[in-house]
């Protein structure tokens, strides 16, 4: 008796809950509480409908008179939002209102939650027109494939000519995924060459002959000198990234699961982790680790290499060099540095290096054409770009000469009221340069980009939709073995075969197969 009562009560409770759920389910579409969950379907339909009608309208009227439009742009920030952000946006609005009758609203979002926020905004259909996304770890391609970004080929043809010219038509092709372009890469050096950055004071102190350094094998005597004479300092730091992250003479084709050796190899993809070179490099790293050249916590530290150098914990680090990098790293570490390019590697441009940061048009944008007009200005309008990068003249910088500026008296890079991370700046080539830095850096970079050798697979982007399970398993295997191996912390003799066996079990062969098929198709389409 008692038992049946209990069960009865439980059933009643369940029934009640079910009714509540269904009641809310049917009414949820209009309810406020469920907005984030139930709304996207109707909302996105209406917004795409809106953009259709909007586009037909504005095509007709584009040359005559533009309707006023409010444009929302989202981008990640690294640290606190600059206090004068709104002042700068107000200035930007003066330009955009005059040119394309548009007012801009910015949404600076902290990098830690940026990706989640973008997911939320995309799924809830919240107002968003222009968004920034990252080229690395396949984020740009997954944003494109999951419909977060609009394809912009037509818009580029109509309103983005200046932009295409600024980026370079050939490099623009790098942003093509499955036949369509979904975003515009930010401008920077498109090619990189591995090299080492060393502290100048210590190089001078021990008269280290940097001309003798050609490859990583020439570093041994340098490291020994530093190790013997500088207690408390390791000769080379491995942080979140380590030397082998950068010592590449192959196109890693995005994720690095299946690479193109020598940037060509007849477009035949190989498994980098199984190559002789990989094993040899691992041995070098392990030798360094055993000799005490590397910080002991290399496999686990959460510090970046530049942090370690800034903290006087290391003498050097290996990285991907490009013309503007030394000045950037000097600013970051506050130390004078010496750079040496490894001459057994060549500067190459790959899709991964070109598509680092991307500005794309969000799918829920109500007027993609207007967004493209603004995007075009972001790459071509000198006044606008200077506002975006440096802020307001007289307040955040003062002019020294025509193209050179400095911070106003009493203000430096850490106290200025407005900054923009170089990752998200669209076109720094037409902006001012800071006093004390190479004023011709833009031309240098542009020359470097034009002269760079191009990977045979430049423009190819792998889409991993078909092999998601394998990708997840592989990324866990890499997490488990890659860092401990590549930092030299473990003996590769035992661990490398285990690593490769695990990769096989995780299905790296299937990923490579899939990638090869996509690459072949891409090559056929681009002949």
């Amino acid at each position: 008796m008692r038992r049946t009562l209990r069960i009865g009560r439980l059933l009643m409770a369940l029934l009640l809950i079910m009714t509540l759920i269904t009641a809310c389910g049917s009414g949820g579409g209009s309810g406020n509480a469920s907005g984030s969950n139930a709304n996207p379907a109707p909302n996105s339909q209406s917004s795409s409908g809106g953009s259709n009608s909007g586009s037909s309208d504005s095509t007709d009227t584009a040359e005559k008179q533009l309707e006023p439009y409010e444009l929302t742009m989202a981008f990640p920030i690294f640290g606190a939002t600059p206090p004068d952000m709104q002042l700068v946006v107000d200035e930007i609005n003066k330009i955009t209102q005059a040119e394309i009758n548009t007012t801009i609203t910015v949404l600076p979002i902290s990098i830690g939650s940026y990706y989640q926020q973008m997911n939320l905004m995309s799924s809830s259909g919240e107002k968003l027109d222009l968004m920034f996304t990252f080229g690395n770890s396949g984020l740009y391609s997954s944003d494109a494939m999951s419909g977060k970004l609009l394809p912009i080929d037509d818009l580029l043809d109509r309103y983005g000519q200046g932009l295409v010219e600024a980026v370079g038509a050939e490099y623009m092709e790098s942003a093509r995924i499955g036949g369509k372009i979904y975003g515009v890469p930010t401008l920077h050096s498109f090619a990189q060459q591995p090299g080492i950055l060393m502290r100048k004071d210590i190089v001078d102190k021990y008269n280290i002959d940097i001309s003798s350094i050609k490859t990583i094998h020439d570093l041994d005597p340098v490291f020994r000198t530093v190790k013997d004479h500088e207690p408390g300092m390791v000769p080379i730091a491995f942080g979140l990234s380590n030397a082998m992250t950068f010592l590449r003479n192959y196109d890693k084709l995005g994720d690095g699961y299946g690479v193109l050796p020598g940037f060509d190899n007849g477009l035949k993809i190989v498994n980098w982790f199984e190559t002789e070179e990989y094993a040899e490099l691992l041995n070098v790293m392990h030798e360094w680790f055993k000799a005490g050249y590397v910080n002991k916590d290399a496999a686990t530290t959460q510090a970046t290499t530049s942090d370690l150098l800034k903290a006087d914990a290391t003498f050097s680090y290996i990285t991907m060099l490009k013309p503007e990098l030394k000045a950037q790293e000097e600013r970051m570490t506050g130390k004078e540095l010496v750079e040496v390019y490894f001459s057994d590697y060549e500067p190459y441009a790959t899709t991964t290096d070109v598509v680092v940061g991307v500005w794309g048009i969000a799918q829920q944008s109500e007027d993609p054409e207007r967004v493209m007009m603004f995007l075009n200005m972001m790459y071509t309008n000198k006044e606008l770009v200077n506002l975006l990068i440096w802020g307001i003249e007289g307040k955040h910088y003062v002019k020294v000469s025509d193209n050179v500026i400095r911070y106003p008296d009493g203000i430096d890079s850490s106290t200025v009221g407005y900054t923009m991370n170089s990752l998200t700046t669209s076109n720094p080539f037409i902006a001012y340069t800071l006093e004390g830095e190479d004023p011709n850096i833009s031309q240098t970079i542009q020359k470097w980009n034009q002269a760079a050798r191009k990977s045979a697979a430049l423009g190819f982007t792998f889409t991993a939709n078909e092999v998601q399970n394998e990708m997840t398993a592989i990324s866990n295997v890499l997490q488990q073995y890659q860092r401990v191996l590549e930092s030299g912390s473990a003996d590769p003799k035992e661990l490398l075969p285990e690593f490769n066996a695990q990769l096989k079990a995780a299905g790296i062969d299937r990923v490579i197969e899939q990638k090869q098929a996509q690459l072949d198709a891409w090559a056929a389409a681009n002949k």
Partner: protein
Amino acid sequence: MSQLPSESAALPAPKKRKRKYDYRRYHPLLIMMIPGLIYLLINNYLPMFGIVIAFKEVNFAKGIFASDWVGFKNFEFLFASNNAYIITRNTILYNLVFLVLGTVFSFIVALMLNEVKNKFLLRSYQAIISMPHLISWVIVSYLVFAFLSVDNGFINRAILPMLGVEEDIYWYTEPKYWPYILTLVDLWKRVGYGSIVYFAALLGINDEYYEAAKLDGASRLQQIWYITLPIVVPVIIMMAMLQLGRIFYSDFGLFYQVTLNSGILFSTTATIDTYVFNGLTGSGNLGMSTAAGVYQSIVGFILVLTVNYLVRRKDRENALF
């Protein structure tokens, strides 16, 4: 079983007197319930629609509900690799160990607190032992790091030399130590706070029982065994059951932060949550991460039902429902 007379008497009594509830009498209470119910509904029930994401390939242009159905494809990655066994084993075994040891130690601490008669000391002890619960895992991870760091760690620099061990131990690359480290850290953080519930239950025991037992010549241990334990068992079972429901969830902070996510330790430290996190941070695949969550919830739900069923068969009064 009538050790908790106030509660057990209150429940059946109105039923006998009147079959229907006197709604007018409970009016204020029912109204007071409304905000809580609404909160529960919005916070705990509405998000359940999100379960459909686990069976979809999310396309933002189409919207979540209009995206294509993919069946169980999103779940495959959990079982696709040979890591599935390791992460399941780690998750369940760690949680079982935490559950058993945590309960035992919390209870012992509660018993000890119960013996402290000085009010001031009691308050201080309670504050001190529940302090770790308030410290975030990120900070705990640095405290642990201060002990285990290879170069500057307290253990490598101070304790090992005292024991005559010369060579440094590379704690963060040796999987074999971690089951002990993690258990220790978890207990340190959880026991003090967990003991509060048991301590409250102990406070509720009428002193008359003990006095009667003393008259009969029962020793301190006998009093604990024959009086305290039977009275507190329902509370223990309830707490254990609540934890069992989460046996398929690992404490992400513990397994991710405290281990510094060191890859080489994965054989003893990877759990379902860290596996999913490590696998999907790059791709940001909504469907697959939702699938993992759904899988964990369903297994947890089944576990709670099963355990409750078993408890009820043995001793109906102690079952949760």
